[in-house]
């Protein structure tokens, strides 16, 4: 399969947040400021790529080998949960500045469905390891792109005179809807 197709498909056409509705919680939750958006993107990218690699290996060398495909969900979520813990501990020891930047986002990531979603999609699409890494990296970039654009819009939105009833979540959702419409323009690219 063409790598470029995977990249463009994942970042623009099937944008993980706006088209596939994965990772909506952080998308709505930590998008009030661009700077936190960037931090969250970093943490998600880090864990997403690692998780995809580890779950890929587990799926192909453990679950499938022993006919335990039905344990997929449980195995993957455990891997992700322990991975997040490990990353947290290692970062704290190895790189305190990075830990400071990403630390507060890490606990939120276990229940970020984008991570588990991408891990499962990688297996479903029968990618090899390299394609899987490219796929998850592109999805992380797509997540970051949507989150940062959205945070930028919301920073401006704060200064606008929004009708009372729409303040807060409603206007954020409607903005996301319009952003999703813009991203629909990319469909058919690949």
């Amino acid at each position, binding site marked *: 399969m063409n790598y470029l197709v995977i990249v463009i498909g994942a970042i623009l056409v099937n944008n993980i947040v706006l088209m596939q509705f994965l990772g909506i919680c952080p998308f709505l939750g930590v998008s009030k400021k661009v700077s936190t958006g960037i931090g969250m993107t970093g943490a998600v990218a880090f864990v997403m790529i690692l998780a995809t690699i580890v779950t890929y290996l587990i799926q192909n060398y453990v679950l499938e080998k022993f006919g335990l495909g039905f344990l997929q969900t*449980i195995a993957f979520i455990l891997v992700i949960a322990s991975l997040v813990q490990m990353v947290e501990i290692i970062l704290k020891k190895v790189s305190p500045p990075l830990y400071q930047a990403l630390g507060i986002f890490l606990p939120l990531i276990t229940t970020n469905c984008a991570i588990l979603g991408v891990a499962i999609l990688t297996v479903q699409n029968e990618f090899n390891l390299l394609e899987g890494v490219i796929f998850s990296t592109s999805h992380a970039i797509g997540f970051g792109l949507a989150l940062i654009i959205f945070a930028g819009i919301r920073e401006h939105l704060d200064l606008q005179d929004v009708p009372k009833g729409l303040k807060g979540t409603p206007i954020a959702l409607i903005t996301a809807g319009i952003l999703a419409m813009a991203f629909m323009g990319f*469909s058919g690219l690949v």
Partner: protein
Amino acid sequence: MLNLNVLEDSKMAKRESSFTNMVVTLVLVTGIAAAALGFVYDFTKGPIEVAKLKAQTEAIKTVLPEFDELGESMVLSPGEGQDSLEFFPAYKNGELVGTAIKTYTKSGFSGFISIMAGIDKDGNFSGYSVLEHAETPGLGSKMDVWFSNPEKPNQYVIGKNPETTKFSVSKDGGDIDAITASTISSRAFLDALNRAYSTYKDNKTTGDSGQ
């Protein structure tokens, strides 16, 4: 009013978070979970197989003329480097009435589309059923009815074959009208049918040449 909260206060002390306790608990919880799932998996394995087979048989039934027996399926390659197609020959009273072909295209508006296409014994398409697609709802997704509407002969593919009819959209000089506003999905659909037909043809000639 029922009040079940009486038990509330008799809360037992939580188990201590010692290392052994934690490990034992997690191993126990995971073990029980895996065992329970193994049991459910065993129980549902049969029905899942049956459901899959039923969906496939149903699709084959809708695309072929009446038959009473399905032959053994064959896996045939449409060409170098392409994923292979599955062929299901169908018989009535021991005679071949048609072949259902599980074909695909990767050039849909949203990528992969899987179609079950039927070819009758005269080599014409006898029907099709879209098994899997991610085309835009209301536009490309209309392909499941668009090409099988007998009132619109210019978009009807049943009873035709790529030898006598040009199986490409009219915009590209073909004989089939594309779905309104969904040329890409229509091209992809015809691509899948062409793939099925050419593979069918290739294997038929090689099969017949021995006689």
